[in-house]
């Protein structure tokens, strides 16, 4: 399984990468904003996306909407990672095509469950 980490915080990406490695997932690509993520998505092979909310250039919601406009990525699962669990934003993300969401702080087991492992 190939996972794409999309977060402007290199620290957060590193935390997630360490957690994924602990699950045996080492096929990981990283993007620091939605624009970079779209470019990586175009290269193909991504199965799941861990997507931050607030990012420069193109934020998580912007990325999600653009990604879901492209039928080629309809099977790519998206998990929104957020430090906020406000219902309105979560509902907005799910309506825009996120498959699920996870609230920071989260540990490896919660992430594993969200990834369906």
């Amino acid at each position, binding site marked *: 399984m190939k996972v794409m980490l999309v977060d402007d*915080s*290199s*620290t*957060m990406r*590193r*935390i997630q990468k*360490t957690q994924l490695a602990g699950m045996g997932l080492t096929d990981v690509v990283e993007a620091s904003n939605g624009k970079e993520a779209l470019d990586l998505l175009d290269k193909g092979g991504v199965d799941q996306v861990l997507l931050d909310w607030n990012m420069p250039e193109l934020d998580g919601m912007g990325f999600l909407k653009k990604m879901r406009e492209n039928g080629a990525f309809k099977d790519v699962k998206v998990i929104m990672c*957020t*430090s*906020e*669990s*406000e219902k309105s934003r979560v509902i907005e993300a799910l309506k825009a095509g996120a498959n699920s969401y996870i*609230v*920071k*702080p*989260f*540990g490896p087991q*919660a992430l594993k469950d969200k990834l369906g492992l």
Partner: protein
Amino acid sequence: MNVAYINPFISSTIATFDTMLKLKTAPGKPVAKTQPFPTYDVSGIIGLSGDAQGCIAISFPKIVALKVVSAILGAEVKVVGEELVDGIGELANIIAGNAKQHFDGLNLLISLPNVVIGRNHMLGALKGIPTIVVPFVSSVGMFSIEVAIKTH
């Protein structure tokens, strides 16, 4: 200050350390900060705005900050540098973001984190906004959080 505003930050700190760092922490008795005094060596600071204004700061002795960031990253960080700054900033961001959800009915906005490094630096209080300091003990050493918040 409404003391109920302190609890979300205390519980969020405990949860964040427990979940992401696998470190147990225990809060001490909160005290009012009436004038600036030296804190520790590394502070992550988040501004609060919206229906309330103020800030939250989490401060560590240098050695504790290095241990905390090492625990976050799952790899030893030995020197004060970019990894330490990013790690403490992200930690402050997660704690503030997680606490935010407990402020029912208040539209609270949090800023990007700032990280201050300096031996025994002082954090000045915001004018007209009382500050509460909560000391914490953990298995890697002591640290503190400061919460200054005032609703309009």
